[in-house]
């Protein structure tokens, strides 16, 4: 495999409340020999607030960053955050569909964006460009004996015309990665149900209802942890887990981990390196279970070797 190298857009959350996603992404990329070059002086993607103002405006806010990537001489922007990804993909989609729209967007910008850049999620890079064969080569501590359900959220695969990634109704990219790093992936029917997104602040009850349903289904599926790829989903499911318990009358304590953190664990990185200790819900029990699983596996392997001898 030739060396992969991309323009990297962390996004606002990843340098603040979701720092652990950024850190684990960079570490995993490093191990997998994927070069991520941070886009110099990137700005906010605009997210959904910009879309409520005007689509032209929203596209311009996003396209400023795409124009910088163009200037870098790169053709792909990679971001771990699905919200940012969606903002970029929509800007590109709308601008390439309508030349007049493109011209108007560029009139708002200092430097025009000429549509020579595509946006991809880091998950897509892992699944399509790196591939499970290359990931499996780096696994030294497989996550044996734990059940992890992948929670994709809304925007990674939807709408299919814009997202152009995985199956919009039954995505399997995270499932595949989780299986590759040794985890057991039970049937999970809430892979795509919305967690309530940015309404955490303004409409808490909505978020605790929706996120509560997701956690309930995960636990009913026998999950020890939920894997996520979105900082907003992580925040709703992890930071707000106590609010969920309070509002909905649950008593859940299920760790919500970024897919990159789980990969890092399997690559032999420590929980603190991956900032797993920075989450609200403690992962201690989950991590112990992994260690236990590993030991049991080693033991059974030894037994089988000695019995052969």
């Amino acid at each position, binding site marked *: 495999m030739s060396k992969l190298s991309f323009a990297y857009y962390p996004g606002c959350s990843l340098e603040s*409340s979701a720092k652990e996603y950024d850190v684990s992404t960079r570490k995993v990329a490093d191990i997998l020999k994927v070069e991520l070059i941070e886009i110099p002086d990137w700005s906010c993607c605009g997210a959904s607030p910009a879309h409520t103002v*005007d689509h032209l405006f929203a596209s311009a806010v996003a396209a400023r960053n795409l124009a910088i990537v163009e200037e870098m001489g790169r053709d792909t922007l990679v971001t771990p955050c699905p919200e940012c990804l969606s903002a970029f993909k929509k800007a590109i989609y709308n601008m390439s569909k309508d030349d007049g729209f493109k011209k108007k967007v560029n009139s708002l910008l200092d430097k025009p964006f000429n549509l020579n850049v595509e946006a991809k999620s880091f998950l897509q890079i892992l699944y399509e460009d790196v591939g499970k064969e290359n990931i499996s080569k780096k696994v030294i501590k497989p996550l044996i004996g734990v059940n992890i359900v992948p929670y994709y959220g809304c925007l990674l695969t939807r709408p299919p015309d814009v997202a152009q990634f995985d199956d919009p109704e039954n995505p399997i990219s995270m499932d595949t990665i989780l299986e590759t790093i040794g985890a057991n992936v039970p049937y999970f029917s809430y892979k795509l149900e919305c967690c309530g997104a940015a309404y955490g*602040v*303004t*409409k808490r009850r909505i978020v605790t209802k929706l996120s509560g349903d997701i956690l309930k289904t995960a636990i009913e599926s026998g999950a020890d942890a939920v894997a996520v790829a979105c900082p907003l989903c992580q925040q709703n499911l992890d930071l707000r887990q106590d609010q969920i318990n309070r509002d909905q009358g649950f008593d859940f304590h299920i760790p919500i981990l970024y897919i990159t953190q789980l990969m890092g664990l399997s690559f032999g990185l420590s929980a603190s390196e991956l900032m797993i200790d920075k989450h609200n819900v403690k992962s201690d029990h989950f991590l112990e279970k992994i260690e236990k699983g590993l030991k049991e596996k080693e033991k059974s392997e030894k037994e089988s070797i000695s019995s052969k001898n």
Partner: protein
Amino acid sequence: MALINLTTSTDENFVNQVETLSGQKISECYQCGKCTAGCPFSFAFDYPVSQIMRLIQIGQKEIVLNSKAIWLCATCEACTTRCPCQIDVANVMDICRIIARKENKVKEKDVKLFYDIFLESVKKHGRIFEIEILMKYNLKSGKLLTDADLGPKILPKGKLNFFPVNIKGKDSVEKIFTRFVEGIKNNE
């Protein structure tokens, strides 16, 4: 629901406006309800999304723009993905928000307030400054205790920045805002 006088309240211009801005043909909706069936926010909406589509079809501008639903839609795109008539429903909801904003008809003031503060932060720093956003929102919404319980959970983790990151090209971001506003003024 109150009686709707279709003779006096039907606003064809509104139908055209939504169709033009969204690029979607609203008349193609045959009210199957699949969007409502898959909408995670249906329980919280005052009008389920299929009824919003129906209200647009019969030109009920006031009801649509004054609905909570359009502000509670999180653009999860489930409706768009599954619509048998290939209508980009989420986009239609988005357009309704934009029109409501322009016409100063916002039923969910808090949601809009949060969005405004968010964008203000972008305009000011180039990126968002999470703590500032939350504090301003609490102050302006008068809901001083919003997420106060989360503070002790997240602050000790040392992830949040206590100072904004001001990017070098923040004026180029600000210019997007000003040019956009000027553009609207010029058009008017």
